[in-house]
């Protein structure tokens, strides 16, 4: 039996919080994304719509500016109300879909292709933390496009209109925030699940669009042929839109969702109940989680 010099001392310093460790993944992912000129330009362009919205809000409250552009009647033409904010959220959420299709496929498949998962998982870092870290990459970028500018626009309007407007329209703020957080997890999980299963990035990106638009087309076909509204249940955009309408307007909605996320009022045969939308989105998220669970493993299982 050998005699060992016991000089080994383990690390006994303070440890950072586990949520801070999650941020390590986005930190390097953002650096990687920044190297792509296309993605940088695309991401910058996604801020154009919120900037136009901010300009509209500002100009509407600035009489001299309205006079300058001979648009004193503009206040009556563009109302800063639920459709205004929901429209912004709809447009931005559609751009988020493009962003997820561009960068989502590059999140997990390179780690699988490079056998890098064992590097993460042989550390004090679980599979759940790995997926959360990867989700954060998309969630941070999409948040900066959706609810963060939405709430800033809400704050700008509130600042210019006053406290009464803010308290009367507080539902818009909660709708922007919670509405975004209905779309963000679904989109992130879909992008990550497809990234884990489809190694060829263009195919994974295409599949994200496929899931959204093929479902929409199929749903429309079912509605048309069967003269029903139940086909909407295949349409993720409808499911999201129907939830948004309730979040923004409550039990008696007057709008039919947002651009790209339509939830038509008074559909033929009656619209599917709201719980169907929640259930189907939750089901989709669970399917994505199951797909991730099958693929995110420390060691590739050889059969």
């Amino acid at each position, binding site marked *: 039996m050998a005699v060992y010099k016991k000089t080994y001392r383990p690390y006994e310093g303070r*440890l950072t919080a586990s949520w801070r460790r999650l941020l390590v993944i986005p930190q390097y992912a953002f650096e990687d994304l920044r190297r792509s000129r296309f993605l940088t330009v695309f991401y910058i362009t996604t801020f154009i719509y919120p900037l136009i919205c901010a300009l509209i809000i500002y100009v509407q409250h600035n009489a001299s500016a309205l006079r300058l552009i001979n648009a004193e009647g503009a206040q009556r033409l563009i109302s800063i109300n639920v459709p205004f904010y929901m429209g912004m959220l709809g447009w931005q959420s559609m751009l988020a879909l493009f962003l997820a299709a561009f960068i989502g496929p590059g999140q997990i498949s390179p780690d699988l292709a490079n056998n890098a998962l064992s*590097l993460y998982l*042989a550390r004090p870092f679980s599979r759940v933390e790995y997926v959360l870290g990867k989700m954060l990459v998309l969630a941070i970028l999409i948040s900066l496009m959706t609810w963060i500018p939405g709430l800033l626009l809400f704050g700008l309007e509130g600042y210019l209109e006053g406290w009464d407007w803010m308290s009367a329209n507080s539902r818009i703020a909660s709708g922007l925030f919670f509405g975004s957080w209905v779309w963000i997890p679904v989109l992130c999980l879909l992008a990550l699940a497809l990234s884990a299963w489809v190694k060829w990035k263009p195919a994974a990106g295409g599949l994200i669009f496929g899931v959204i638009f093929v479902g929409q087309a199929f749903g429309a076909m079912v509605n048309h042929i069967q003269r029903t509204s139940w086909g909407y249940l295949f349409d993720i955009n409808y499911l999201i839109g129907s939830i948004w309408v309730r979040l923004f307007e409550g039990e008696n909605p007057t709008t039919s969702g947002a651009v790209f996320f339509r939830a038509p009022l008074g559909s033929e045969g009656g619209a599917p109940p709201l719980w169907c939308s929640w259930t189907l989105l939750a089901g989709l998220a669970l399917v994505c989680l199951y797909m991730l669970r099958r693929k995110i493993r420390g060691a590739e299982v050889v059969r």
Partner: protein
Amino acid sequence: MTENTLITFANVSRFYGEVLGINKVNLSVPPGITSLVGPNGSGKTTLMNLMSGLLRPTQGQISVLGVPPDHPEKLGRILGYCTQFDAFPKGLTGWQFLYSFLLLHGMSEAESRQRAAAALERVNMMDAAHRLVAAYSKGMRQRIKLAQAVAHDPQVLVLDEPLNGLDPMARAETIALFREWGDKGRHVIVSSHILHEVDRISDQVILLSHGYVVAEGQIQGVRSEVKEQPMQILVRCDRPADLAARLFQQNHVVEAKIHGDGRNLLLRTKDADSFYLLLNRIVLDSGLDVESVAPADDDVNSVYQYLIGGEGGTV
């Protein structure tokens, strides 16, 4: 030795569907350098993945210094793992690779910076620290993988084929590092195909075949347990023919060959202890001039051939 100083496998099996990974493994691995030896598909990587927590056993219990491998928060702090694959996240430099993975351990930025630099220094990679890992040579990638495994100063190092792709100089340096870590009382678990190097570096070996542990322990001890294969002993003396004639009078000596320059006698005996006693007596009686006596087959290569042979493919 207590459970907190051992890596233990208690009746551990791992199946991949219908395919056997390892079966009914019982092991107790003490500190020092332990080599896993076996043909391709014998279960070496499965065993390493199980102790690293990357795979869960189908049945049985594993404990790494008292920590069950399904507790990544605890296990990751005491264990460093170097996979046999070229495993790197995309787009990172060597420095970023080490630094970011130290941050994942929960170390502060300053501590991570210091440890990343120390680990790079350790494997002589400081000059290439800020180059992309993807642009590294095979040997450099192997060294940076080793650096990430040791950067957080783990007590258990699990290194799957760590010598692959290294040039002779880097290989010698790496073996010296293993020796140093082993001497500090760490567990260094190494799998390797290079048997003569396994022989040089190992304190103990674990021989695997078809998912079963065929033998474990110090190699001389393992060799002495292989009773069905007579022990080979090389004796260098001035009159090997005389010695052979006297030895053949004993039942336990089954073969004797004169080798090389006519002064080497290679013997095969079923009872090494009796042989050594007999040799002493012969030397005293006949005045034989013996230069050296050495076992010729108590190395990993011989034991491997006896226990596993050519059945399992490449080694």
